[in-house]
């Protein structure tokens, strides 16, 4: 647990350092926080760290609430990396936030702490506390630009719908506890089979899944996504799209496959339907959009659907594909939002027209955004292609058992084809825009350049050499059982 404690301590230090730092040094504060998190990230790979895989699945503390297995470690690395990149982005964005920049950094770190706890949650109480820490931090992060009406509107929408989903989740937990008397996932797994026919227990499971569905923005709990993504400050949106969504998925995997495996087996139909509709809804609604952040909002709904393919397959191949896809999604989406944060810094809205002439203003950013779109669309040789390939493979392998899986794979392919239109609309806006653009070059700070190049390298690496991560993911999902 030393990792989580260090992250919380880092948040407190950032919060306190603000008191003594002169205003012109605050930029350094964000970079220092990012560097500290990077160190913690690298530290997870050293063998003596408490995060090492060698300690095995029995490594539980605090009355079995906190589990440090392979899955937890995988997602902890994921969240740490995402937070580092988001913090670098936040420093770049700080002039638009205006007041309270250091608090912005520290809230990102606290949200990260919540995600780390959620990755290790092995108990409903722990899970709920961690989720609330994440969600409440995001309410603040979303409405941080309080001078902008859109940001406040996004914050209020997220608050109301988030509170509703929390209510569903906690009601679900109460029903599960009321019928089984268990909070702990392992203990629940032992008795879940007995309750598989108990309708009240199933009601609890459904309500709990509603709460998680809101987190991952799956249909029909996706209404908040486009508005919140558009209104929130860009680094918040990026963290929401990567961190918050991945939290939902790690909890979904743990809940379905560790806590109620006997029940989840019978639920493939529900997962197939939700996944299929989510893919279609996200892709179709993205078509008419002109605002880049809204496009990414709808595309993130579609991608939640793609990731659900792997969950719906209910196999270890599907689970490891989920992990691989999320890793690729991290680099891709963070690259896209980094470009948005840089290019649209001085514009009021993130309209596609703002991208005009980007290839002359900054070839690096134009290339990054193009690659991100190509990867999101799922074209080889980038990370997105291989992720989709693995997910579809996992689904089609299940096809002979249930023909619904073939329909699902077909739906996903249709979704990919639809999505080409709007992803390439973005690329067209960069290179072939007719509007007369302002051609002032865009300055990029060194850390930002490094972050952007790192994201690009990640996309290429995962697309060209997927073997290492696939093996790691396959090894990780063993700890779910």
């Amino acid at each position: 647990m030393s990792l989580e404690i260090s992250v919380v301590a880092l948040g407190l230090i950032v919060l306190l350092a603000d008191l003594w730092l002169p205003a012109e040094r605050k930029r350094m504060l964000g970079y220092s926080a990012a560097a500290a998190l990077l160190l913690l990230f690298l530290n997870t790979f050293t063998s003596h760290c408490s995060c090492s895989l060698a300690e095995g699945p029995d490594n539980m503390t605090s009355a079995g609430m906190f589990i440090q297995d392979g899955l937890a470690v995988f997602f902890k690395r994921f969240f740490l990396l995402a937070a580092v990149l988001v913090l670098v982005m936040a420093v770049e964005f700080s002039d638009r936030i205006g007041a309270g920049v250091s608090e912005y950094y520290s809230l990102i770190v606290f949200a990260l702490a919540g995600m780390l706890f959620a990755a290790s949650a092995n108990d409903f109480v722990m899970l709920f506390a961690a989720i609330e820490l994440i969600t409440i931090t995001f309410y603040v992060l979303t409405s941080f630009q309080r001078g902008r009406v859109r940001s406040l509107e996004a914050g209020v929408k997220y608050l109301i719908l988030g509170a509703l989903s929390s209510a569903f989740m906690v009601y679900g937990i109460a029903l599960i506890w009321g019928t089984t008397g268990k909070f702990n996932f392992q203990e629940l797994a032992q008795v879940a089979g007995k309750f598989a026919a108990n309708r009240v227990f199933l009601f609890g499971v459904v309500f709990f899944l509603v709460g998680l569905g809101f987190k991952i923005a799956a249909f029909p709990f996706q209404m908040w996504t486009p508005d919140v993504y558009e209104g929130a400050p860009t680094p918040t949106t990026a963290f929401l799209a990567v961190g918050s969504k991945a939290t939902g998925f790690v909890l979904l995997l743990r809940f379905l496959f560790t806590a109620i495996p006997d029940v989840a087996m019978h639920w493939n139909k529900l997962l197939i339907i939700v996944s299929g509709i989510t893919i279609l809804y996200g892709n179709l609604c993205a078509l008419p959009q002109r605002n880049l952040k809204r496009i990414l909002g709808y595309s993130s709904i579609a991608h939640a659907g793609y990731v659900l393919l792997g969950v719906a397959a209910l196999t270890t191949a599907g689970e490891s594909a989920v992990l691989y896809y999320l890793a690729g999604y991290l680099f891709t989406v963070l690259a896209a939002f980094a470009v948005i944060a840089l290019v649209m810094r001085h514009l009021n809205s993130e309209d596609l027209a703002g991208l005009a002439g980007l290839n002359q203003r900054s070839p690096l950013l134009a290339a990054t955004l193009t690659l991100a779109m190509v990867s999101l669309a799922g074209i080889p040789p980038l990370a997105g292609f291989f992720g989709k390939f693995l997910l579809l493979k996992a689904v089609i392998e299940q096809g002979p058992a249930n023909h619904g899986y073939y329909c699902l794979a077909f739906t996903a392919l249709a979704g990919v084809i639809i999505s080409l239109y709007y992803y390439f609309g973005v690329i067209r806006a960069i290179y072939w825009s007719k509007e007369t653009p302002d051609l002032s070059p865009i300055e990029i700070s060194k850390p930002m350049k490094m972050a952007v190049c790192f994201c690009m390298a990640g996309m290429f690496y995962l697309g060209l050499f997927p073997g290492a991560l696939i093996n790691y993911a396959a090894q990780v999902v063993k700890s779910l059982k």
Partner: protein
Amino acid sequence: MDALLNYLFSSNGLFWVFAFMTLACGGLVVANPFSRNPVTSAMFLVLTIISMAGLFVLLHAFFLAAVQVMVYAGAVMVLFLFVIMLLDLQEEERRKVKKLGLLAGLLSIGAIAGIFVKSLMAAQPGRGLPAPVAEGGTIPLGKLLFTNYLLPFEIVSVLLLVAMVGVILLSKKDLK
């Protein structure tokens, strides 16, 4: 007196009274046919919270009941009233409710409630489980909080810090 108390606790009568009060007052908070005044709604919320405290007492969770009254019915409600009075809300205008939306909402709520009640009747929750140990005093609660549930408890403390920072940031007049 003791006999009376014992009778009240052992029978289900009080449960039905408090449950009915909670639901009825909760309904009046959101949709009161007699008054559109926000203060009235807030007062019904107080009643809802107090009847919920009654439910906690029936579960022998005396500490929670007391906290419910002190924190929610006391402190939080005072804040609510402050905000309502500061904003000087007039009687809210009747919003036009779309007929179709209302119908769809009522239908879906009715359907969920119907299925839920039916499954409750069928499942008989709590069957096969040992009778719950009714311990709601401060000592067992504190022991649990600082042993088994220490970690979530500490996470909640971080959460409160975040909420505090957030409220100050979002409400302070001019930040430097």
